[in-house]
């Protein structure tokens, strides 16, 4: 199946996070690769968004939205590092 890039996670996670998630760096719990969420490979649409590690295919994050409800799982991430939003707070 064709996968998409982590960029597409920005919409479904928009009201889950107070930060822009696709620029956040995260570490894969399985292979220790460090990448921005925007670099993940996203499968599962339109049932949900299954973001997998670009290096080892491990599931990093899953978001499912339906009927005014969202489910989020971030089990596959060891950590997520978010840049100071002030830096980008301009056009």
């Amino acid at each position: 199946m064709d996968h998409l890039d982590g960029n597409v996670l920005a919409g479904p996670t928009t009201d889950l996070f107070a930060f822009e998630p696709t620029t956040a760096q995260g570490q894969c719990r399985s292979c220790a690769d460090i990448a921005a969420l925007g670099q993940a490979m996203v499968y599962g649409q339109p049932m949900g968004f299954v973001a997998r590690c670009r290096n080892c295919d491990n599931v990093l994050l899953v978001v499912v939205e339906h009927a005014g409800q969202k489910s989020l799982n971030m089990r596959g991430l060891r950590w997520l590092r978010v840049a100071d939003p002030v830096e980008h707070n301009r056009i």
Partner: protein
Amino acid sequence: MAVFGGRRGDDNPALPPGQHLTASFPVLSAGPTPSIDTEDWEFFIQTETGQTHRWNWDKFLALPSEDITVDIHCVTSWSKFGTRWRGVSLDTLFSEVETGFDFVMAHSYGGYTTNLPRQELLDGKAWIAYEYGGSELDPEHGGPARLLVPHLYFWKSAKWVRGLVMQSEDNPGFWEEYGYNLHGDPWREERYS
């Protein structure tokens, strides 16, 4: 003013509620397509005693198989009529299995899982399918072999199936854990829990 209708609105009585008909065969997958050589392929059923029944490709193909023509229904709202498969009935595979557990977790190559009640797999309602439309099953559609449970939403028909593990309770599989229905009957529109 333009009014959006979406792709639904078909009054065909053979269509479950909220579904529309498609002629194509859309591909939906929670992960990359695994490449599985039939030399390495096996299917298993594991029971509560820890006993595991195993079939390799040759042993599996030696089982009685049947042609199956069924309508399929994806939870993302497409349905496809008259799909033709060939496969081995789960009745055949379960005939040598003794279990007191009423639920099943299907496991796939690649890590996908989905849960089903055992009774939904028996009485001629479910198969392990290995041909589609007269040809070997394309990896993109679950080949070499997939679960086929056409009376439930199609996410239950696990692609690249490798085994069934009996479970005492209806523990959720991959999508079910995120709110998709544990049962998934399209005629009762059991999309979410």
